[in-house]
């Protein structure tokens, strides 16, 4: 079971966390200016990198904060990125 490094609480078991998707996924500032195709892409498509991805995790059964982690999808090795 992954041992996830929460920037506030330290390492905890993965079942204390909720995954939040790739950190690239930022809500566009002005959705009304985004095309239909661009909007669909924002809602539905997922990068799915084979390698290191930056992603959001939330420490739901803990400090309850969101933070960003780097995870290598080949090995599940995680390294801290930044606290939000």
């Amino acid at each position: 079971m992954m041992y996830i490094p929460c920037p506030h609480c330290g390492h905890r078991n993965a079942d204390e966390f909720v995954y939040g998707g790739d950190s690239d996924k930022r809500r566009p500032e002005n959705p009304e200016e985004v095309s239909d195709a661009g909007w669909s892409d924002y809602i539905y498509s997922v990068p799915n990198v084979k390698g290191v991805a930056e992603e959001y995790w939330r420490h739901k059964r803990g400090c309850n904060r969101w933070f960003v982690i780097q995870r290598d999808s080949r090995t599940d090795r995680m390294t801290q990125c930044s606290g939000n």
Partner: protein
Amino acid sequence: MSGYNAKLDAIPRKGMLDLRGDAEAVRLCGETLGCRFPEEANAKIAVSDHSALICLSDDHWIFETADGLQVEILQQLELAAADQFHSFCDVSDMYAHLVLSGPEAIEVLAQCVAIDIHPRVFGPGSTARCAFADTVAQVSCLDSSPAYEISVLSSYERYSIDWLLMAIGS
């Protein structure tokens, strides 16, 4: 059937405040309480001999005191932080508190939580908010008998008691 040498007690409500605020709000609150708010998550400091402050994350604290005393403190803190970005709530009824104690309390607690509770790293004064059974709890080490305090949401109180009694095995 037999069971671990440990017992479970429910203890009365505490006066509790859920405190959230930015740096300036927190500084002003610290002045009012006469302490510095701890900055490390899962750090617990005594504010007086019956009050304590637990840091949950970089802008979230829980203040504990005797039941009833929190009302006035809440007013004082609201006054101090009035112009700052903050949110203070009385959550005294939101939590139920249980105490697990006895020579084999660790063997019981190890069934319910997955954090490291070895006395070397989780001795008296330590606290952590972590997964507890299928819910979440604030777990604190009270003394080295050993005794642990487990605080859960009120709606999970009976579930938590049932779980702990099952883990004790009586």
